[in-house]
């Protein structure tokens, strides 16, 4: 039997170890190295207690919900439609869940209703953006304001307290010393990463975000992909709202305010782009959030002025953008 020579379009055979190492090139490599530095600084500055179970629990609990919301929102980013309404959707989802549970309704049923609200919000965003070709930034900014307003209409005084023990235990608990909610968040991230890199739908999402006209010419339904991505984004935010109620035992009308900036800053640090679709990987998003959460924790446990957090996050964000440009931007991807 004679071996056939590789054609121009065959992927070159790469050893598994080399393939793993290759995956750390680009943004994921940069952010991995940044995370390692962050952990080292934490170890030196805070001491061994930085890696104590209680501290890992604090970091894990604080990062898990933004992670789940961010990973789901990243599908919209990949599809080239930024969804600015996720923070308000988290808040509104939490308000809906909290208020309905307080009336005595079954928590599972209420969770289903809350997810349904997320679907409706996502479809509304998608309808205006896809059907009328409206600018996603403007539409989702409008939705952000609308949902925040609705939260304030619903919650006009002190919100009811709804400490749901099983949900509280999931959001605050640990399995083998590791925060349960973070494990769930990592699971969601890995599934999302698998969908993005290993499935046809993932490649379609990237193709639509990268160049929607080319994707359409290749027979991909751009509208369908963007509708699904925007619904996934809103549903992720609604689930985040439910989890926040579990964690906090209530939901005020300001819950989730500014969360969209926190999440998108971390996603951009992790290699996503607000203005360019088709770029980024959920693993990068996870690492970006862990870097920000790690820095936050270092500042918190050393009781450093919290205002420095915004300063540091901004510096790293700008650096990440410059690194992206420096290494070639689109040409590199």
């Amino acid at each position, binding site marked *: 039997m004679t071996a056939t020579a590789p054609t121009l379009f065959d992927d070159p055979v790469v050893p598994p170890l080399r393939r793993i190492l290759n995956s750390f090139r680009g943004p994921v490599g*940069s952010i991995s*190295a*940044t995370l*390692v*530095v*962050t952990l080292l*600084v934490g170890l030196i*500055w*805070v*001491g061994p*207690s930085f890696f*104590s179970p*209680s*501290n890992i*629990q*604090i970091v894990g*609990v*604080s990062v898990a919900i933004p992670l789940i919301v961010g990973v789901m929102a990243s599908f919209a980013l990949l599809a080239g439609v930024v969804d600015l309404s996720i923070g308000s959707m988290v808040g509104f989802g939490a308000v809906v869940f909290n208020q309905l549970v307080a009336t005595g309704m079954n928590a599972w049923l209420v969770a289903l209703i809350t997810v349904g609200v997320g679907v409706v919000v996502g479809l509304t965003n998608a309808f205006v953006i896809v059907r009328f070709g409206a600018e996603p930034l403007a539409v989702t900014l409008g939705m952000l304001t609308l949902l925040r307003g609705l939260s*304030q209409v619903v*919650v*006009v*005084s*002190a*919100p009811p*307290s709804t*400490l749901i023990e099983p949900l*509280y235990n999931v959001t605050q608990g640990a399995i083998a010393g590791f925060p349960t909610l973070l494990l769930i968040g990592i699971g969601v991230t890995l599934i999302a990463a698998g969908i993005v890199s290993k499935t046809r739908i993932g490649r379609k999402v990237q193709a639509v975000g990268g160049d929607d006209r080319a994707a359409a010419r290749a027979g991909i339904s751009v509208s369908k992909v963007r509708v699904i991505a925007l619904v996934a984004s809103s549903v992720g935010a609604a689930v985040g709202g439910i989890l*926040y109620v579990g*964690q*906090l*035992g*209530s*939901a*005020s*009308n*300001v*819950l989730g*305010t500014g969360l969209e900036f926190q999440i998108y800053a971390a996603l951009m640090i992790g290699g996503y782009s607000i203005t360019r679709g088709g770029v980024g990987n959920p693993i990068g998003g996870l690492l970006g959030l862990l870097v920000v959460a790690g*820095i936050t924790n*270092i500042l*918190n*446990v*050393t*009781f*450093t*002025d*919290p205002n*420095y957090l915004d*300063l*540091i996050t901004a*510096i*790293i964000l700008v*650096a990440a953008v*410059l*690194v992206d440009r*420096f*290494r*070639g931007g689109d*040409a*590199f991807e």
Partner: protein
Amino acid sequence: MTHFTRGRLARLGLVAVAAASLMLAGCSTVGSTSGASTDSATDSTFTVGFAVGGQPDADWQDLQGEVAKGLAEQRGWNFVELSNDNSEATATKNADIFIQKGVNMVMMFNGQPSANPVIAKKYADAGIPVVTFDIAQPGWYFVGVDNATAGTDGGTALGNLAKSKWNCQVDLVISAEGTAAGQINTWRTGNARDAVKKVCPNIPEANYVSYEADGNLTTSLANAPGVFAAHPDAKNILVVGLNDQAVVGALQAATQLGRDGSIMGWGQDGGLITGANVDPHLAGSVMYFLEGYPAEAFKIADEIAAGKAPAVKDTGTDPAASVQPCPVTAAQAAAIPNINDRVSQLAAAPQGTTEYDLFCKA
């Protein structure tokens, strides 16, 4: 230079920026004394954890932390401070950090108290006593002003001004509400409104209007123009509200709209009645000396540190410590030092002194 080489350099650059940023922050550790990075669990010195509110436009919240830090230093205690950042999620995380640090007690102002039941559960499980300012929570020592009296005092003073200046001919009484504060809003805003009615009983009921100011200047300034637009003929206007920020938001809106020809407001808390930039239409306020609340809280802390924890009094009607309200006109307030000087004077005063003792008794 190839992309590969540039990429390597870029990655190194990002890592360097991360490290440099953290080191930069490390040069400026604030809000802690006596080696805050040392776990209190391994240190027998009494440690106070202090969570400031972190609400925007509220300098007094940061200054509460300054006062508390000074009082802890007076006693030779450890002091660690975090900001709740006006977020219930952050307040909950801060509770975990204080518990991890093994503090002996916590003092806090939480402007988003919806998570307080969860936070209370965490502290109760850890056996850490908590002093809360102004917002009551079962199981926590409550330190706050007598809100009902404060509301009545402010409304009475404003009503008397309307009587002397306008013979109670008032076209509009605006209530800048902060409904999220619940009963506190009812006491402060509602009682002030009732007191105006009592002094000037002939003001028609239709002349009383309310809007949501949410207890902050930004929201108040954004929402107040609607009230003025809905009452275009109103000339003599009174404003009461949850706090100084809410009231000043309405007064500034009136100025922006050219409706400030005949308007007077009376605030609550005294946050904006002293200093160089007092709104000229803010006729007075009820000063609580908010930044000085820790002075009351440390009286409780002294007993806890001495091993004689007092019985928990956790309601506004039966507080662990009641802060005396101090109604002042703008002219009287001008004689009171600004907030930073008050903090300095309180820090220099003998242990147990309050700002009411220093600035209101006289």
